[in-house]
Structures are given as structure tokens and as C-alpha cells.
């Protein structure tokens, strides 16, 4: 089996890659990494990813890290298989996918990560959610989602009228956000809400949601 993904079933970044695998109906092996034991920070794992984070993809002789780089690689390598996530036959559509992939990475992600962390991970570390951090980031996220709302009132998905990698990258963190009181930031925006309901109901993503829960084992 060529594709080996090191990660964890509840990890957002691992799920970003797993969703991509499922959209393309690819065979792969998921090798669990014990985050609670800090396995990702130990030397054997650091040899794969010197930044000590999951996921890591091993494909024959190459090792990749950074989930968005992995999805990009997989979407390109297997562009002829399963769903075309990158519009590989149309340069301009492909460019729009890249634009909104960057938007997710540099604008959406930095705002949503601290919110999800406070609600879901901080309690596991014995802390209550820090409302100051949540509020500050919700304000940022709201501004970003106002732009998404405008965008999604003219196109069905972010890069155009086609589902793409740009939409997919939003799935894992948003899934967790929707389980918290912060879900209102999505629900209050009708086009964003409709887009969310659409992309989160795709079978490729639904396959993962059972494993997506932050419970200390």
C-alpha cells in the first residue's frame, strides 16, 4: 500500500487529508500517532517531520508534512482519479482554487483555531475556555465570514460553482466549531450556513465524523 498517513482520527489536520483520500477513493493506511503521549515530539517522529506535528504522508520514497501541502500533492498526483478537487484542466479555475486555499490558510484558519482550541482542547488540559481569546477571535472570524457571505451569494462554492479543495480545507475545524456556542457565527449568515450544510454532508467527510471527538482516552 503506497499511501501511509501518520496521524490521529480526531485531529483536524489529519482529517483534512483523510477527506481528500476519500474524495478520490484512494487506498491508504492510517498509522495512529499517540498525541496524548507526545509521540509526535519524539525523535523517531521528528525524523519524519522536524516540526513535530501530524499528519505526515509517506508515499513510496517521499515524506510530506503540512496537511495542505499533502492534499495539494494528492489532488495533483491523482487528478485523474475520483473527484477533481483542483480543476486541473482549467488554469483560471485552478487559480481560483488556489486563491481561496490561501484565504482559508491565512485568514480563516488563524481566527478559528484559537476558538476551537479554547472550547475543546483547553478543558483537556484542565483549563476553562478563555472567553477573552474566544471573543477576540470571533470578531476576526465574523469579519472574514462577512466576506465569505458576499462571495457565496454569487457562487455556490468558494472558488466558483464547483466544490474544490478550497472548500474541503475548511471542513475539520468548522466541524468542531459547529459543536460550540460559536456556531452562531456560521448560522447567522444564510449563504455561509447553506454552504456549510452542503460541504459537510458530502459522504467523503461524513466517513470521518464518528472518529472526530476530543475525549481523553
Amino acid at each position: 500500500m503506497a499511501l501511509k498517513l501518520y496521524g490521529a482520527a480526531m485531529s483536524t489536520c489529519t482529517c483534512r487529508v483523510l477527506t481528500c483520500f476519500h474524495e478520490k477513493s484512494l487506498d491508504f493506511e492510517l498509522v495512529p500517532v499517540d498525541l496524548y503521549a507526545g509521540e509526535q515530539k519524539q525523535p523517531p517522529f521528528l525524523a519524519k517531520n522536524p516540526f513535530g506535528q501530524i499528519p505526515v504522508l509517506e508515499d513510496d520514497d517521499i515524506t510530506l508534512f503540512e496537511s495542505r501541502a499533502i492534499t495539494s500533492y494528492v489532488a495533483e498526483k491523482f487528478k485523474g482519479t475520483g473527484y477533481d478537487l483542483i480543476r486541473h484542466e482549467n488554469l483560471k479555475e485552478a487559480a481560483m482554487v488556489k486563491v481561496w486555499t490561501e484565504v482559508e490558510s491565512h485568514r480563516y484558519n488563524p481566527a478559528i483555531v484559537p476558538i476551537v482550541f479554547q472550547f475543546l482542547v483547553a478543558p483537556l488540559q484542565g483549563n476553562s475556555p478563555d472567553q477573552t481569546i474566544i471573543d477576540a477571535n470571533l470578531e476576526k472570524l465574523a469579519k472574514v465570514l462577512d466576506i465569505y457571505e458576499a462571495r457565496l451569494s454569487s457562487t455556490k462554492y468558494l472558488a466558483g460553482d464547483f466544490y474544490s479543495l478550497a472548500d474541503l480545507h475548511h471542513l475539520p475545524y468548522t466541524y468542531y466549531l459547529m459543536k460550540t456556542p460559536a456556531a452562531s457565527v456560521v448560522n447567522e449568515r444564510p449563504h455561509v450556513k447553506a454552504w456549510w450544510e452542503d460541504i459537510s454532508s458530502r459522504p467523503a467527510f461524513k466517513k470521518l465524523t464518528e472518529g472526530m471527538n476530543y475525549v481523553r482516552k
Partner: protein
Amino acid sequence: MAVKVYGPATAVCPQRVMVCLLEKGVEFDLVHVDLDSGEQKLPEFLLKQPFGQVPVVEDGDFRLYESRAIIRYYAAKYEDRGTKSTGLHTRRESSESGSKVTPTWSKLSRRKLEKVLDVYEKRLSRSKYLAGESFTLADLSHMPATRYLISEAGLGHLVKDRKKLNAWWEDISSRPSWKKMIDLAGF
């Protein structure tokens, strides 16, 4: 009709685009945007870029923003022209390096930055450039922020103290496209 690049020549993200276009020999007109007066947040500009940031590229009636998306578009569009800077593997290096380094540099968080640069030092002892033996978008992407780090931020020793990193920087910053960009930016 030349490609229009909106942004000041002195800003990091427009520079990323300019260097790429210079590498590919694509003619462009730089349209200055006055960041100090907040021109990028005015309604007319927000029509071009809803997040109110530079750069924006207009190529005929096709408009793009997000500098890393722009350079990938042009690298793909002109794959056979100028420097060959894309490839399956290079794509992953562009993504993985950029997000680790740029936010750290703008926050100037020394310890984090030094740890990241140590990883780069190790990487560059295995290959001449970040993605392998050829100069690619991965290296290009880093150039504007590295220059800023050395010049305005006065942290050049962080690069000079790392042998491979320094050699890499000396190499890539001697490229004609970079020198031309420095000229355009008036540095």
C-alpha cells in the same frame, strides 16, 4: 497589455509576485497603493480585494489575489518560460515553509524563529535549495521576508550564523530577478 500588480514595491507580498514575474519574463505595471493612508481599505480597493490587502493582480479581465496563489498561477501558466520553478514536490515545500516562517517573522518571536531556522539549516545541508537541487517557488517565496529580516529588522546574524542558510541566501539573492526587484523597490 501588461499585467497590473497593485501594491507598493516596498511591501513583502507584492515583492513575492514581482520576483516571480521577473523570473518568468512577464511584463507588468506596478500600480502603487498607499498603505500608510489606508488606500487598501477604501471601498474602490475592496472591490478588487475584499480583505483589503495587497497585492492584487489584474491580467486582462482576470483578477487574482493572495500572493502565493498568484505566483503558482503564473508558474503554471508559463511553465515553459523563464526559470522552471514548479513541480509536484516543490508545491509541498512552498506551502509547508511559508506558513511556518512568515507569521513568525512578522511577530519577531526570536526563539520560535531560531528553532524554525535550525530546521531550515538541517534541510539545506541535504539539498542546495529548499525543495531539492533547483531553485523553485519555495525559495522565491521566502525572499522578500528574508530581506526584511536582515535589513529593517536587523536580524541578519540569524542567517549569517547558519552556514547553509547563509550560503542559500547569498545564492538566491544574487539572482538577476531579485536584483531587478531591489532596483524597482528603490532599496
